[in-house]
């Protein structure tokens, strides 16, 4: 069970409030798109869910446990936004990077099983033909797929992605969304994804969390796309 609960989360950098009293529940199998304007606190919220930042106030629970107890058992896969600066020139092959994901899991896989899992993950995200290429030599979209494959190798129940399509062309980003949609539907992985691409994100996600420091909207993407279409842009840009 991988229900994510945020209880009255508040976070501030010195005196600047980044997240203000956000409470929400993400159910097992949800695909949640976190949208909002620049500086709205989307990435901060994702880092709080991932347990990378301790909130000033409030608590995050994953499967009923506090995030700082829950993390570290391969439960959460995380694909950060700024991995690119490290990846450029990194001398590891695609296969080596995906295999690294196995070290994130609860128990280290045996060598034969490790090879099988690595190959399967590469096939799943469509990078098996790039297995011997160095990750730094790939395009942004291909790198993103490799990072998703690495996160998946640990067999996570919750996948957190920060702007997975930023800096990627239209076609490649469409393939990333398609991949995430498949993972969510076929494998039942709960996905929380921060995105700027509101139209695309909302079309793939089943729930939307629109934040601008505060939680402006949390509900089904249909509701966000339909009933609240009039006020959508107002929320998005002003948080009012």
């Amino acid at each position: 069970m991988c229900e994510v609960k945020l209880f009255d989360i508040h976070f501030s950098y010195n005196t600047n409030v980044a997240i203000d009293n956000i409470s929400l529940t993400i159910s097992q199998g949800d695909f949640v798109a976190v949208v909002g304007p620049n500086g709205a606190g989307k990435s901060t919220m994702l880092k709080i869910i991932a347990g990378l930042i301790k909130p000033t106030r409030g608590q995050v629970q994953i499967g009923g446990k506090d995030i700082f107890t829950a993390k570290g058992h391969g439960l959460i896969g995380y694909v950060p936004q700024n991995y690119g600066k490290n990846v450029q020139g990194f001398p590891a092959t695609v296969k080596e990077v995906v295999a690294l994901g196995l070290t994130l899991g609860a128990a280290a896989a045996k060598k034969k099983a490790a090879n099988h899992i690595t190959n399967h993950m590469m096939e799943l995200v469509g990078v098996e033909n790039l297995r011997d290429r160095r990750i730094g030599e790939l395009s942004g979209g291909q790198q993103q797929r490799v990072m998703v494959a690495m996160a998946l190798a640990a067999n996570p129940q919750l996948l957190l992605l920060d702007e997975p399509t930023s800096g990627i062309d239209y076609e490649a980003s469409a393939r990333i969304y398609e991949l995430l949609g498949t993972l969510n539907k076929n494998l039942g992985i709960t996905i929380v994804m921060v995105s700027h691409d509101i139209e695309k994100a909302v079309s793939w996600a089943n729930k939307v969390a629109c934040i601008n420091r505060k939680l402006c909207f949390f509900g089904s993407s249909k509701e966000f796309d339909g009933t609240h279409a009039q006020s959508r842009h107002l929320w998005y840009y002003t948080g009012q």
Partner: protein
Amino acid sequence: MEFFQYDFIQRALLAGLITGIVCPLIGSFVVVRRQSLIGDGLGHIAFAGVTGGYMVGLYPVVGALILTIAGAVGIELVRRRHIAFADMGLAIFFYAGAAMAIIFSTMTRMPSTGLLSFLFGSIITVSLTDVITIAGAGTLVLLIVYFLFDKLMLMSLDEDIANVAGINTGMINMLFSILTALVVVVGMTIVGILLVSALMIVPVATAHLLRVGFKATMGWAVIFSMLSVFIGLTSSFYLDIAPGGTIVMTAILFYIIMTIIRQCIAFKERLKEQISSSFGDE
């Protein structure tokens, strides 16, 4: 061969080859973590440790070990607190090491031959105690790198991912800094304080040109490093010069040769492409 008959050469070779293995092993991670100058910073602190140790009557290598590990811990703590200005923190430790070394060396009146052997490396001053110290430290480095390999590689790729996976990144970063300090002290006996960092970086840079995977790059870096140590030590014996320079120049020569080969391969590939595209046009 006459060269291998001398006890001091056997000791220098043994110590040199262990150095040749551990320097690029740690260097492979240092390079991808964008910390290529950490070896220089720690080298200067090690020099302060050598002179400081001599001043208080400690075995110079032990003095270097204590101060270099303290410096490594300090550099890591500053890096954690000021991540955006990590290189500035390193520079301050670098200068502090150099300044302390100057002060201690003028206070102690350490014989200049002793100072020079630590600065430029030496093959005649490698004692059995040095070999045992280097072998012990080298084994420790190998074991830790073996057991932490995946975690170190993952943290070099992205620390946040490692953190979410529950890896104690703070503890491993600290351990890695201490290992780097250990390797600097291990390497300074043969290669010298001024150039020990080069043996951590240059063979790795050469291996990067082969464009193979992470483990293969590491393996090739060790091969280039060991060859450089062997050729450099042999040359230094016959030419009667300090080994540090010959070892590092050999390593740089490998880098230049590999760069030329790489350029030739790239040129050949471009030519092939041009020929096939011009035939395709026709």
